[in-house]
């Protein structure tokens, strides 16, 4: 993901975020949030030189609530579900998210405009990251790009990617760091974007920083200066956040890769045992596990949900799929992670399932 700042003045901020080969124009029309908007998007993407000739795939308008503009009401007959810090409503075409008094909405499955109406108030700075994050997700969904809560690493031997899928605290970052220490390339330690191309389902990075617990930093012997990224992360950094963030290039000497073509999927969890265990999964098992982890794959409007599920289907069809229970041996030696993700352990798991 990259950002090209196109134009800025007192009244309006306009810039492009390039995510998963998709140019998203972001327009903020009020001065009270434009710096926060730029800072929030920028922590997910390096700022590039200005380029006004970019073709826009989707536009996100960020507007201050005005009584004269009327209020957005729930679509009649809409079904709703909880999202992080908010609620989503959909009537089959329109998608509307509420965060406090602020709103994100998109009108059709093929819409090229996502609108954020923010309500100025004491909760705005806390709500703004959610508003922008979900607006970007809805925009990407409508361009056939779908987020997955997964780390992504690339085997230097064959150049193919492995996705490490799991909830927060499942060990994705630990495995990613250990593989990076062993010379593997990486895209992200936490979230990627999937997009179908002629060669298969490509995985794209979409977050600049890594996030590790203090325990993992010490166990993996990561030498990072957290203060160097505290300022750029700005409002994301929080005393309540139990993890520390750093730029991977500061630690591993090179930035993340922009994309990869994965051929392995691992559903990772912590076993709290001495040794790690790898088990082979069928494609059907893997797809259902993916769908469980991707609420939007069934809760988006039907046309978008169908595209999301078919992207996940293509992903499991191009990959070998495994369940990995990470033991303490992953922390002890980076070579263990290489053996688990890179080859010999997964080959054994395949043979055991023949």
């Amino acid at each position, binding site marked *: 993901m990259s950002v090209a700042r196109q134009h800025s003045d007192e009244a309006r901020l306009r810039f492009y975020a390039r995510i998963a080969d998709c140019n998203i124009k972001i327009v903020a029309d009020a001065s009270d949030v434009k710096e926060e908007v730029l800072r929030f998007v920028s922590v997910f993407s390096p700022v590039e030189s200005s380029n006004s000739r970019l073709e826009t795939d989707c536009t996100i308008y960020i507007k201050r609530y005005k009584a004269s503009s009327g209020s957005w009401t729930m679509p009649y007959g809409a079904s709703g579900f909880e999202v992080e810090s908010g609620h989503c409503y959909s009537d089959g075409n329109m998608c509307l998210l509420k965060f406090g008094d602020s709103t994100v909405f998109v009108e059709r499955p093929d819409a090229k405009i996502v609108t954020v109406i923010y309500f100025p108030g004491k909760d705005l700075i806390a709500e703004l990251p959610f508003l922008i994050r979900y607006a970007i997700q809805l925009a990407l969904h409508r361009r056939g790009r779908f987020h997955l809560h997964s780390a992504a690493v690339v085997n230097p031997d064959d150049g193919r990617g492995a996705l490490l899928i799991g909830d927060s605290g499942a060990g994705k970052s630990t495995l990613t760091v250990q593989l990076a220490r062993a010379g593997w390339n990486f895209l992200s330690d936490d979230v990627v974007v999937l997009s179908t191309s002629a060669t298969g389902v490509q995985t794209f990075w979409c977050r600049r920083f890594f996030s590790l617990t203090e325990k993992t930093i010490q166990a993996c012997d990561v030498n990072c200066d957290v203060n160097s990224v505290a300022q750029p992360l700005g409002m994301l950094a929080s005393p309540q956040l139990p993890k520390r963030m750093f730029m991977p290039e500061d630690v591993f000497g090179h930035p993340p890769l922009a994309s990869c073509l994965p051929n392995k999927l691992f559903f990772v969890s912590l076993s709290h045992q001495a040794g790690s265990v790898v088990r082979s999964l*069928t*494609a*059907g098992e893997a*797809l*259902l596990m993916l*769908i469980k982890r991707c609420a939007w*794959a*069934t*809760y988006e409007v*039907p046309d978008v*949900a*169908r595209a999301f*599920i*078919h992207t*996940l*289907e293509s992903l*499991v*069809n191009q990959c070998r799929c495994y369940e990995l229970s990470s033991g303490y041996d992953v922390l002890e030696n980076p070579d263990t992670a290489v053996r688990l993700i890179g080859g010999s352990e997964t080959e054994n798991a395949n043979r055991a399932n023949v």
Partner: protein
Amino acid sequence: MSKENKTENQPRENIVASEFTNGEGTLVDLNTKRYIQLNETALLIWRCLEGRQTRDEIINQLCARYDVTPEHAGQSVDKAIASFKENGLVS
């Protein structure tokens, strides 16, 4: 073939079928957020229902693809359709 046969057991809207390289598949019901796994035969029967084929046409498809008798194929079709109905996947 009667008109009734062409219109019964039609897949409901917003059921997404996926197919894997091993021939198996899944159905995800976007209405209820439920899903079921299908073996190769059940997936073929589902695809035939999507193509608005009748029971007899589906039996012919199964007999052409697998070394089974029409009676055996008919039992498989009835069992699969009963399961689809039980899960609210067909009308």
